[in-house]
């Protein structure tokens, strides 16, 4: 009897945990961590001045040495490793203060990695675009496709088999760009192999890019006359 009750209690607890995990997964809107904080501490202390371009996103953006690859322009790198759409939304004021002529946005893979519902990510993305457009009506906003992953090289299971979701989200982003009259940059043209995965030679871990790949990225943007 006691044993049965104990079992019941356990299964109830277990169910409660699952429910909580599910609701957490749906609304895990957290973005603040020590890394985010120390990046923001830096960004908030940099003198406010006008910029030609801002590269906005997560670690993939942060690791690019955009300023040295794109000469003669005043450029701000506003990538934060691990960031998601909630984190970008929360720091838009810092970006808006820079009054950039162009913004290159690339965000969303950490949202997908976390298992956030597509609607939530897309809603955040839409809000990001709306707020930027309202505050910076003259700024050209470039919506960059979320990069594909390479499952063979990925070390973390939570990121595996996400390319279908990446493509789904990208379709929505492309549609949003059309509706909002923004330029959509399909990075897959350059970064994906024939199976739609991130080119094996361009990454060590299936998600991040080798340093040299940023030179290819910038060349691509130049060829497309976006820079």
């Amino acid at each position: 009897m006691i044993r049965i009750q104990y079992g019941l209690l356990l299964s109830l607890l277990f169910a409660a945990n699952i429910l909580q995990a599910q609701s957490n997964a749906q609304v895990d809107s957290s973005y603040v961590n020590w890394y985010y904080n120390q990046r923001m501490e830096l960004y908030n202390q940099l003198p406010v001045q006008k910029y030609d371009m801002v590269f906005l996103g997560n670690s993939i953006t942060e690791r690019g040495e955009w300023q040295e690859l794109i000469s003669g322009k005043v450029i701000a790198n506003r990538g934060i490793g691990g960031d998601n759409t909630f984190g970008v939304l929360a720091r838009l004021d810092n970006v808006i203060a820079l009054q950039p002529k162009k913004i290159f946005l690339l965000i969303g893979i950490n949202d997908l990695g976390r298992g956030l519902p597509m609607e939530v990510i897309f809603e955040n993305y839409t809000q990001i675009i709306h707020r930027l457009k309202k505050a910076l009506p003259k700024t050209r906003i470039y919506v960059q496709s979320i990069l594909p992953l390479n499952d063979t090289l990925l070390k973390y299971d939570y990121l595996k088999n996400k390319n279908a979701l990446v493509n789904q989200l990208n379709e929505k982003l492309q549609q949003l760009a059309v509706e909002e009259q923004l330029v959509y940059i399909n990075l897959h043209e350059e970064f994906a192999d024939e199976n739609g995965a991130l080119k094996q030679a361009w990454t060590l871990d299936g998600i991040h890019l080798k340093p040299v790949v940023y030179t290819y990225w910038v060349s691509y943007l130049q060829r497309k006359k976006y820079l």
Partner: protein
Amino acid sequence: MSVAVLACTLGSIEMKAQTAVDSAYNNGYYQLRMEYFDEVPSRKKEIVFLGNSITEAGDWLDILPKKRVANRGISGDISFGVLARLDKILENKPAKIFLLIGVNDLKREIPKELIIQNYRKIVNRVRTYSPKTRLFLQSVLPVNEEKLIEPFKKVKMEDIVYLNEALQEIAKENQIEYINLWEVLGNKEGQLIERFTPDGIHLKPIAYIKWVDYLKKKKYL
């Protein structure tokens, strides 16, 4: 028989010598960075920050968005690694080079005299191949002994001081600038300022703002 023993002894001496001077620098990460540097479009009159992870982690490009800055830090690099890639850097005749190297050499217990010899080689090569480049020798940063993480425990403050004295001397001999970063990143006990470092050796992003301010104040930038 005796030949075999002798060969064996020689072998072990050689092995010892190799472990004593671990000058290997060409690791996977070094190669990745070099592959990138090879593809970056070359620019004249750059301001180059040259060194290891402490340099690489600096947001120089963001802190100095209007200057033509190149970050040539490679995480884990040692004085041998800098020497090996110096010619590539000098090809573009940079306007300025801010050098900071040596703490990983100490971590690996490379003899100080060898490190100092490498400093001299670096200075000579810059002066020979790009005489108009202003080379700044930056002091090896102090560590924060209380916060220092295990892998760097072999780095001793007295050795850092010794290297810095040599750097100062080399700067004087060559009539170039020595930059004493302890003035801005060290506290009055001679430790790396606690709030600037997460692990006793590396710097938090905001520390680089102070560093750049200091270089500006000294009119080096």
